[in-house]
């Protein structure tokens, strides 16, 4: 129960951190500040069990039309 509440709070604060990061990036904040915010967002994502997909995960969703098989050559 307590753990669930903690996770819920972390997940709730994640979009706030993401919004802060987007706003800071837009306003061209100092790089150290952006790095710290990015670190906070990544940390929150890991702890809350939410993470953005990696490229490997995205590409794993693909079904290459060519892999379905080319038409046999006409003789």
């Amino acid at each position, binding site marked *: *129960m307590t753990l*669930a*509440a903690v*996770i*819920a*709070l972390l*997940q*709730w604060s*994640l*979009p706030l951190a993401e919004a802060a990061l*987007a706003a800071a*990036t*837009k306003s061209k904040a100092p790089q150290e500040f952006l790095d710290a915010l990015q670190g906070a967002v*990544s940390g929150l994502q890991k702890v*809350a069990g*939410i*993470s*953005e*997909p*990696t*490229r*490997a*995960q*995205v*590409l794993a*969703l*693909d*079904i*290459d*039309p060519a892999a*379905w*098989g*080319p*038409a*046999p050559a006409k003789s």
Partner: protein
Amino acid sequence: MPKQRSLLVILLVLLALAWFSGCTPERDAVRALGASKGTIEAEMGKHGECNPANGTVPATQICSLLGKAIAFQHTAVLALDAYCSSTDYLANHGQCLPPTDPAAKKELQTKLTVAVQDLAPIINNLKSVVNSTKTVSIKTVGGK
């Protein structure tokens, strides 16, 4: 007892907020594309006759839908890949990070949303054709 109940209600509200706030276009797309890939691959396994490598593809509804579904799945994955393509994502296989430029982000997000939305009715049609085929088979077997 009422205190416990109000605590539970607060917790449920927090969980609901957390659930909805955890949704981003890329996470939604990953969920949708994961489900559609499962459906497509299951049917690819059952309908080898629809594979052009096995000869002339019969002009059936299932083969037509499978071909379309594979093409639309591929398009949607490419749109998601483009949406996520920050330097870290591309070069280091890092996490999906949409462009920081709002105009570029909006354009790529629209393309991603459209691609996923275009795929959905094809998957639904594929499922309904598969289900209707099953019903016909059961009726045929039952009728004998």
